[in-house]
């Protein structure tokens, strides 16, 4: 690929919550070009009304996720070379979320579930206390660390068929956060967390189909986290009975 006059066919979903369709654009190919660059090029040079979202452009904010050739991806860190097929790319809004316009999805349901899963630290100390000493190699800490670097990009959420079929399902990211907190020795809300993930939309709906772990751009494994929650809730269930 050189920056001369190679061009590619990019088919972009246009529309809003009422529906829409793909529209084809002819975009110049460049070296070092990400899918986000392609989308931005279209908006800046071909169709000024194209809507999409991004912020950090380096894979830290999780705002730019879209469906690329039918797979959810962070577009700012997806090189065109990785997804170009027969000189074509298809780009659509993230799956499993309402569309605001074109490629911009409404992430509110995702974050509502994050909070609903009690994915919010429950303090046991205050700013006047010393910082707790924690052995970074302790078993609990290692478990918490495994899922802590989630950027809430919703890629896992978009990949999960259980989310698609079961609108109440809290989804992989929220449950991954709940599990991380459950293992955080400083968190005082383990009981709350277990209750929050045991309801009709809770962790027990996950079928371990693993798309979440397969697509997570940061290599996290929400499937593991959810399995952990299943064990913890089951153990607590029997403990409370007896």
């Amino acid at each position, binding site marked *: 690929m050189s*920056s001369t006059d190679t061009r590619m066919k990019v088919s972009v979903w246009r529309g*809003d919550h009422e529906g829409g369709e793909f529209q084809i654009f002819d975009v110049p190919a*460049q070296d*070092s*070009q*990400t899918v*986000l*660059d392609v989308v*931005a*090029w279209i*908006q*800046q*040079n071909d169709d*000024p*009304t194209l*809507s999409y*979202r991004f*912020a*950090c*452009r*380096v*894979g*830290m*904010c999780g705002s730019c996720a879209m469906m690329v050739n039918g797979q959810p991806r962070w577009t700012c*860190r*997806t090189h065109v*070379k990785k997804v170009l097929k027969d000189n074509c790319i298809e780009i659509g809004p993230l799956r499993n979320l309402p569309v*605001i*316009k*074109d490629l*911009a999805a409404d*992430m509110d349901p995702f*974050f509502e579930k*994050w*909070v609903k899963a009690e994915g*919010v*630290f429950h303090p*046991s*100390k*205050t*700013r*006047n*206390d*010393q*910082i*707790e*000493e*924690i*052995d*970074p190699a302790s078993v609990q800490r290692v478990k918490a*660390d495994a899922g*802590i*670097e*989630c*950027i*809430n990009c919703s890629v896992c959420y978009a990949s999960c068929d259980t989310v698609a079929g079961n609108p109440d399902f809290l989804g992989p990211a929220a449950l991954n*956060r709940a599990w991380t*907190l459950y293992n*955080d020795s*400083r968190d005082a809300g383990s009981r709350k967390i277990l209750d929050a993930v045991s309801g009709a939309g809770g962790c027990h709906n996950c079928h371990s189909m693993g798309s979440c772990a397969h697509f997570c751009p940061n290599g996290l494994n929400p499937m593991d986290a959810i399995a952990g929650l299943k064990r913890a809730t089951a153990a607590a269930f029997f403990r409370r009975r007896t």
Partner: protein
Amino acid sequence: MPLKSDIDRHDTDILILGTGGAGLFGALHAQQSAPPGTKITIAVKGLIGKCGCTRMVQGGYNVALGHGDTVERHFMDTIVGGKWLPDQDMAWRLCEQAVVRVRELENEIGCFFDRVADGSLHHKAFAGQTADRTVHKGDLTGIEIINRLMEQVLARPIEKLQEHRAVGLIPTKDGSALAGVLFIDMRSGKFRFVRARTVLMATGGGPTMYKYHTPSGDKTMDGLAMALRAGLPLRDMEMVQFHPTGLLAGDHTKMTGTVLEEGLRGAGGHLLNGNDHRFMYDYDTRGERSTRDVVSRGIYSEMRKNNSSPNGGVFISMAHLGPDIVAKKFKGMVQRCADSGFDLAGGKVEVVPTAHYFMGGVVVDVDTRTAMEGLYVAGEDAGGAHGSNRLGGNGVANSTVYGGIAGDVMGRDIRAMTALRDPDENILSAEIERARRPFGKPVGNVQNLRRVLQDAMWDDVGVMRTEQGLISGLKKIATVATDLQDIGVDPSNLAFNLTWHDWLNLASLVDVSEVIAEAALARENSRGAHFREDFPDQGDLETSYFTVARKTAEGLRVSRDPVRFTIVRPGETVLPEGEPETLVQAAR
């Protein structure tokens, strides 16, 4: 003058602009300190917690919490690093409160900072520090801080106005106080005016008017442009910090300008020019390990001599340290480069200095109050704490410390503000018309014009400055300003219309660019981030001044105000006698 367009009106008690470290802390603390029943609203240009630069913090957070470090030492480093220009009371408060804020982040918000084997916090030393002071979560500290803050805010009864862009601070008719803020609801394209008793502006500066820049895409100096139009004084506006190693990958990609971390140089990375010559020792005895400003100028000089790489920068090379070791030690960076098609571990990657942080900002007191009643400013929008240079690790400390203070102070002040204020409808109307300006004009390419501004700022108001260059830069900025007024945007569908926002972004950038260039002209010496080739000396420290710019009826005015040495004078120190110069092992 009656409004020409139909707008939405909305009331709240405490309004917060922005969801970086400053905005989110402002919201949380306001919620803790305001009387029960106070309505708090947080409005942001992107999604809550998913935009802004705090999230992009890699290195970490400066706090005197161990290894013999003290608030005094942190303070002295901040003053010396800022070349005696910081407002000393602000700097002191920053260092003192950072200790409380980090404990709050750990104990109440739930951030987990890295520990060493004995379970205590891990501290590392950024360049320019005399103690191991920087706490961090790997090299993704900002994500940890913002994610945790975001959760707390999302879980609270705080009204959320997402994808709401602030476009104007609207004062009362007599101009004595702030009445509210005008927004565009970006999702629908509609205007919304929100009245509030107090407003925290935490929109985070962000010098993205330079060809190469690091901040996130939503940051375009909107806050400072609004403050300027509202007549507020802005200080230290010439102070733009450049990070020496931004990725260079061509004009067409957003990856260009993004940071390749400081640690690469620290670990022994080589900077090579286009002829494969390791040039940094030609400029400084510390070579690549020199401070940000020195390395930036070294690279810039090579570029000007045309000793540059294919895309016009230089190379960073790590391979001599062993590709496997590099790949392990800088996993995130190597992976990021690989995603973009570059081999950082084994090959050479093109880099260029890149505009990183804005030290200038609105003049505020240590309680974040401004000259306008009801308006508070914190974070990168506020000037004073860093002077001419910001220490690595002091940026996020500043935004979280002062955001929290703003929340506390607003929660207190609001008790004395019984009523909402009515806006000056004329100004409201004028601000709406200003934002609607491109409608009906022939449609043009905003991005190309932004490039013109970015080139001008890079060439003439950038890493190295001269009077001649600055004057030429000002002319170019003025041309861009005129051209922008003639570029149209098709108004037929304003919902999520990014092109309209590109136009508004550029309008903010142009306004602030002019102030940067004027302030740079006014400073006839070289301090910290500001380097004048025609005035390379730092000037007399005792008579240090800072610049204050303000828009008046006659146009932009820049004055020089003397720095008040309220805590320590040049040549003195607040450290007890006999304290070692530095506690950092490697530096001793």
